[in-house]
């Protein structure tokens, strides 16, 4: 067993909170540049111009990309040969969030109770997804998730008879209904299969893939391309002002499902597709 002190997690998580909120990935910037060139509407082009300028300003490290610095969501691939020592794993992650959000001047957007709504004051707790994998390393991916786009996401229990058409209709319908609210151009994470709770997880996980990197299975890569084209035909456009870029990318993740079911989920992300990664 490889012993890993959880203090390392505190540092890594704190760094990732700051990095993700200030520095947009080159994959995302590339889609902005593409949009600036190819968007057909003038006001849409202006949105891409502002998004690029915004990303350059944020990159200087004084103003985060967006004031909604998100719910800290941490995906952990924990090698089964790792033995965590030196304290409680979840406490360490939350201490990292606390430190990152404080030192990075990030907004504290979490309320302790969904109905009584008192701010926790330090953006904790994180949402943590753990996957046990072979090996002796820990892979961490942190993604701060904004509330506006999360609000427009949806899960639907489709049936096998709904088929591919049913998935396309559900995804396009969800993006169409969301309209200008989730800060388009959006990144669309789609989950298909699994169970009610698994499919929502798949949709979230789909958002982690580098933008426009197609699904390894050509069947799903083709579905992603079709979904992107159909979504961009809605005319919603950048910020909903009208135009040809409503989505920057559509990513689909799938899982086996029951003979009676075909769950589907759409998790929308704004254009600020933020994440950071560390391997310990």
């Amino acid at each position, binding site marked *: 067993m490889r012993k890993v002190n959880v203090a390392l997690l505190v540092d890594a998580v704190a760094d990732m909170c700051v990095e993700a909120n200030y520095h947009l990935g080159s994959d995302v910037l590339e889609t902005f540049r593409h949009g600036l060139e190819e968007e057909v509407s003038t*006001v849409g082009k202006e949105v891409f111009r502002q998004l690029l300028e915004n990303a350059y*300003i944020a990159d200087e490290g004084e103003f985060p990309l*967006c*004031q909604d610095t998100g719910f800290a969501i941490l995906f952990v691939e924990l090698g089964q040969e790792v033995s965590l020592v030196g304290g409680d794993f979840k406490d360490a992650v939350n201490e990292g969030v606390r430190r990152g959000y404080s030192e990075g001047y990030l907004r504290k957007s979490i309320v302790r109770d969904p109905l009584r709504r008192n701010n926790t004051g330090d953006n904790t707790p994180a949402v943590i997804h753990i996957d046990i994998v072979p090996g002796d390393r820990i892979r961490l991916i942190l993604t701060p998730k904004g509330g506006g786009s999360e609000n427009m996401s949806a899960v639907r229990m489709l049936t096998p008879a709904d088929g591919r058409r049913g998935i396309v209709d559900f995804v396009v319908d969800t993006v169409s209904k969301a309209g200008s*609210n989730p800060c388009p151009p959006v990144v669309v994470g789609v989950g298909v299969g699994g169970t009610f709770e698994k499919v929502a997880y798949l949709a979230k996980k789909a958002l982690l893939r580098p933008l426009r990197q197609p699904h390894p299975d050509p069947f799903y890569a083709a579905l992603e391309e079709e979904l992107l084209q159909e979504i961009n035909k809605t005319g919603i456009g950048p910020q909903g002002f009208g135009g040809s870029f409503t989505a920057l990318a559509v990513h689909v993740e799938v899982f086996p499902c029951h003979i009676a079911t075909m769950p589907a989920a759409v998790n929308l992300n704004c254009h600020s597709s933020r994440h950071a990664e560390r391997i310990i």
Partner: protein
Amino acid sequence: MTKRIRAPLTDSDVMELKSGDNVLFSGVVYAARDAAHQKLADLLEAREQWPVDLKGQVIYYVGPSPARPGKVIGSAGPTTSGRMDAYTPSMLAQGVKALIGKGSRNESTRRALQKYKGVYLAATGGAGALLARAIKESEVVAYPELGPEAILRLVVEDFPAVVINDAYGNDLYEEGRRHYAERS
């Protein structure tokens, strides 16, 4: 066309703005979002006075990130306006003239904009670093206990926004989308 507007606004300022216009705001705008709206609504219901006079004023739906030392404000882009729809008609009835946020408004807000001569504009969602540069002063004027949801008095200079719903009943989101939608 870009129009320069100085806040607070008069009825005639509002009537000059048309859906699709690019606007550069200068002057005072008040930051308020969900929790502050709830507090103002509670005061209205109790027939008590608001902590700030919002007649003729512009409300910006924003909950900024914390300011770094030496900076006026942190990142400060718009939040989703639809969540404020429940409160907006009564805000307009009290004399608020303009709202800045992002995302669509419901039917009752759109009707109230016509009735009370108000205008709804969108700033670019997710461009909070860029928009922060147009904010020159920031001061908490009510509900400091709400943290990022406190009411702030902001002084802005050339703050960019686009008119979505004008006082004539037009809606840029609907028109823009219709114009660019590809019929299948």
